[in-house]
Structures are given as structure tokens and as C-alpha cells.
């Protein structure tokens, strides 16, 4: 086994960069970059959670943005009702996401392939319309979160640096958890189901139950990202759940490298930085972004991680 590889080096460099970023931001006085990267880290968390079911479990969910909304609305609604404590808001956000994942997972996992993609999409659209109908909580216009989650002095979410490190800690914790899951017996079964469901079932594994548990874990993780995102933007609206959002998350995962531990983080960083860069370059940034995605699909097998792996061998 090689001790050095390009992909490992690049990953380490990226992670180190994420850790020291606030230092740079504080020294240079560039506040914007910290705000941008807080968003990137949160969406990287969401992408990593999607990667757990998509990359390792082979379940192509096209409705993952729904959890971003559910987590966000849990925070927003509780804040609106006067419950500002993060110790209540975050567990509720996670529990709500888990319950939603349990229900739609039970139904969706009866189907496979394209049907699975479509049914998860349909459920996310349903969640979108439910949120649009919540007149008490802003309906279509969304809900402003006037006060960020309060962790009774333990950590101050209104402090940019502290909030950034909280998000980064959550991201690392989730990636560590995914690493443990993927290498556990449970994770090996789920990956086996991706390769050959029939064979796994023949050996005697209850396929659907394993997949469902994986689906719920992933949804709960993404709910955490949703709760953080609502705190980051001080706002939550149905648009968070719109299907193009789910598409964005899928793009991040595939761009970074599906089924790799750090690929989604890489994908989120590159995708969102590219979006930022192109939108500063021209108002019509999507005109470049769209064909770029097409090219990545056509020529970039395995995403950035795959590319780095090939660099190493070549």
C-alpha cells in the first residue's frame, strides 16, 4: 500500500485550509469569505449525508433538500413560538427529519431504480407544497429567524467564528460517523446490497430493513445541516426544499466523487466556489455552469476524487 497519494494530499490540504480559514479571515478582515465558507461547510455536510445513501448505499434520492427544509423549519417554527434554546431546537430538528425519513423511506424503498429517484422527488415536492401552505409560518415568503439558537452560553451562534467552527465540527463529526458506519458490519451489508441485492437477500439479510436504517441515518444528518443553514441565513423558506436544491446536492456528490469519504466535501467546495466565481465574472454564470456539468458527466468519471486517483497512477 502506498503511503503517499495525490488525493490524500489534496484532501489533507483542503481540510487544513478549512480549519485555518477563520484565522485568515480575521487577519485580512475579509468577512465575506467566512460567511461564504460557513455556507459551503453546511452544504458539504448535507452532501456528505446524501453520499451515505447514494454513494455507499446505491439509493439515488432526488429529494434530499427536503431535510434541509425540515431541519430549518424546526428551528424557525420553535423560534417563532418563543422556544429559542438550541438544546430543544436541534434535537427536534433531528427527530423530525428522522421521522420524515422513516415514513418516506418505508414507502420509497418498495421501488427501485428510476422509480426510486422519482418517488423521492415527489415526496420532496410534497414537503415543498406543505411548507408553502404554512400561512402561520410565512407560507411562500418564508420565515425569518429573528434569534439564532441559544446554547445558554456554551457557544454563541451569532459570533461568526464560533458558528463557523460549530459547523465545521458537525461536518467532521458526521464524516467520522460515516467512516465508522461504512466500515462496520452494518455498512458492509448496505454496500453489499448496492452491488447485489438478490444475493444478499439469499444469504439471509433483510435487505429493506438495512436500507431503511441507512436512509433514516442519512436523513437525520441532513436535518442537522438544515438546522445549521437556518441559523446561518436567519431565514428559512420553501425554496430551500425546491427540487433544484436536491439537484445541487446530487451534483456536489457526483462532482466530488460518489462513494468516497471526502468527495462530497470537495464537491461542495468546488461547486459553490465555482458558482461564486462565475457569478462575479458574469451575471449569466449558469450559461457556463450548465455545459460544464455536462462535460464533467461525459468525461470526468468518478468526480474529482477519481481524477486525483488517476493522477496518482498515471
Amino acid at each position, binding site marked *: 500500500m502506498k503511503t503517499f497519494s495525490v488525493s490524500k494530499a489534496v484532501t489533507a490540504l483542503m481540510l487544513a485550509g478549512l480549519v485555518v480559514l477563520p484565522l485568515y479571515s480575521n487577519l485580512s478582515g475579509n468577512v465575506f469569505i467566512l460567511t461564504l465558507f460557513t455556507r459551503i461547510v453546511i452544504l458539504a455536510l448535507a452532501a456528505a449525508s446524501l453520499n451515505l445513501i447514494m454513494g455507499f448505499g446505491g439509493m439515488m434520492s432526488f429529494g434530499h433538500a427536503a431535510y434541509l427544509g425540515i431541519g430549518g423549519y424546526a428551528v424557525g417554527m420553535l423560534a417563532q413560538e418563543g422556544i429559542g434554546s438550541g438544546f430543544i431546537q436541534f434535537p427536534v430538528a433531528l427527530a423530525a427529519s428522522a421521522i420524515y425519513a422513516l415514513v418516506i423511506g418505508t414507502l420509497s424503498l418498495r*421501488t*427501485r431504480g428510476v422509480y426510486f429517484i*422519482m418517488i423521492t422527488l415527489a415526496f420532496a415536492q*410534497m414537503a415543498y407544497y406543505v411548507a408553502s401552505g404554512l400561512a402561520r409560518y410565512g407560507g411562500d415568503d418564508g420565515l425569518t429567524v429573528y434569534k439564532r439558537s441559544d446554547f445558554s452560553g456554551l457557544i454563541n451562534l451569532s459570533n461568526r467564528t464560533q458558528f463557523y467552527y460549530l459547523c465545521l465540527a458537525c461536518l467532521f463529526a458526521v464524516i467520522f460517523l460515516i467512516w465508522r458506519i461504512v466500515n462496520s458490519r452494518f455498512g458492509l451489508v448496505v454496500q453489499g446490497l448496492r452491488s447485489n441485492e438478490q444475493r444478499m437477500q439469499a444469504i439471509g439479510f433483510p435487505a429493506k430493513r438495512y436500507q431503511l436504517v441507512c436512509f433514516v441515518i442519512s436523513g437525520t444528518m441532513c436535518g442537522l445541516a438544515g438546522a445549521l443553514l437556518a441559523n446561518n441565513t436567519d431565514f428559512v423558506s420553501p425554496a430551500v426544499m425546491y427540487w433544484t436544491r436536491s439537484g445541487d446536492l*446530487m451534483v456536489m456528490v457526483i462532482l466530488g466523487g460518489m462513494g468516497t469519504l471526502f468527495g462530497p466535501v470537495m464537491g461542495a467546495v468546488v461547486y459553490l466556489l465555482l458558482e461564486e466565481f462565475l457569478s462575479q465574472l458574469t451575471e449569466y454564470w449558469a450559461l457556463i455552469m450548465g455545459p460544464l456539468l455536462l462535460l464533467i458527466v*461525459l468525461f470526468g468519471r468518478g468526480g474529482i476524487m477519481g481524477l486525483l486517483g488517476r493522477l496518482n497512477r498515471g
Partner: protein
Amino acid sequence: MLLVVEQFLNGLQFGLLLFLLAAGLTLVFGIMDLVNLAHGSLYMMGAYFAATFAAWTGSFLLGALLALGATLVLGIVLEMSALRHLYGRDHLDHVLATFGLILFFNEAVRLIWGPAGLALPLPAWLTVPVPILPGIHYPAYRLAIIVVALLVALLLYLGVMRTRIGMLIRAGASNREMIGALGINIKLLYTLVFGLGAALAGLAGMMQAPILTVQIGMGENILILAFVIIVIGGIGSIRGAFLAAIFVGMIDTLGRAFLPNLLRQVLSGAAASTAAPALSSMLIYLLMAIVLVVRPEGLFPANRR
């Protein structure tokens, strides 16, 4: 009574329009095994082309005809330049690549036509109400949509079931290698099918255009409805798409029209008026979930491969 008949016809009209969109989608899906998210963009382009050409020529019909040709050509160019390379790839690749195409088309439209929507005014002879039953009038244009869509559906059915090209298309759907081995130019066939699907989507877009405004992103919501339809109807089945489209059109329209009143019988006025819009938007997704749970392959699955 008047309202019931009117909403019933509206539902039929919307369902037929959805069928035009879903037919192209299900053909491309069933035959090339390609998930084309950009189908909604072709719908949008159809509407923009029609609005532009109608303004240039000053004639609604001529504009629509030119726009139909333009979407056909656009579809063929799109297939030959990009989508052709996606056949046989993973469905996920299709989703990602065509997602990129949506971004591109939306932005291109913004660049060319500007962010504000366009209007496609109807000629005078299509705006008159037509008596359909004694005492009941219905807008001529909506009636025209029903007639045109039914005609297209019939032509499509005859074309696929009764002509040589249709036979080749069906053969290509059931076994791609075999028909290639028999000396049929499968590439050309696929390009034709894609162009046909694009033209159908464009037709749906330009027919919907006078009712709604022509705007960026108009294809996205309706695309999801079309996906719901082909999933309910069974992927690759035109008959399934037809029945499911009518079904979805009816449920959506009737739900929006009558659900608020129904809910008001059960709930208090305020609660009903807030719950009704969300519930009626959810209805079809609920329907799709139920269908998939009961019959995971859709109601009318096409022949298995």
C-alpha cells in the same frame, strides 16, 4: 352544474396538455432509456419560439408552425451534440447532465429574451366562447387545445402502432442490439424519436403559452408533473401515459376547484382556506405515492426488457 362541466373540461384540457409532454418523455425514456430533465426546457423553448415567431409574422398559426419546426430542430441538435453520448450510461449521469442543460437553457433564455416574461396574444377568432351544451359556453381556445391534443394523440398511436417507423421504434425499445444487427440505423432512429419528443414538448408549451405567461422556469413545475404521470402510467407506455395524464389533469384541476368547498364543510373557514391550496397541490403526489406502493411498476407497465 355550469361550474362542474367547465372544470371537467379544464381538467381534460390540462390532462391532454400534460400528455403531450409526458408522451415525449416516456418515448425517450422507454426507448433510449434516457432520463431527460431538460424536457421541460424544450417545453419552455416551444413557448418562447411561438411568442417570438407570432410577433414577427403577425400570425398566430404561422408562428406556432414555425415554432414547432424550431423545437424539432433544437431537439435534434441537442440529441446529436450532447445527449447521444449519454445512452447506456448510468441514470444518475443523465440526471446530472440534463440538470446542467436546464441551467443552460434558463440562462440562455434570460440572455436572449430578458428576465421579464412574454405574452402570446390569441387571435380574435380563438377568443370567442363556444356553446357546447344549451346554456353552457366554453372558450374556443381551450376547446381547440382539446381537439389538437386528441388529434396528436391519435396520430401518435397510429404512427407507433401502424407504420413501419413505429414498428422500428417499438423494436428498438425491446432490443437495441438486435435491430441494429438487422441493419437498421438505430442512431438515426433515436435522433428522430428525440426530435419527435421535443416537438411534442414544444407543442405543449406553445399551446399553454396564451393561457399562462411565457416565462423562465415555466417548464420545471410541469416537468415534475410529467414525471409523476409516466411513473403512474408505467415508464415507456404511451397508453399508460395517456390515461395517467388525463387522470392527473382531472384530479389536479377538480381538486383545486372543489377541495376548498369540501374542506369548508369539515373545517372552520380560516383553517380550510389555508389548508386547501397546499392539500390540492399535494393531491397528485399523494396519488403517485399510493400507486407506487400498490404497484411499484406503475399502472400500465410497458413490456419488460
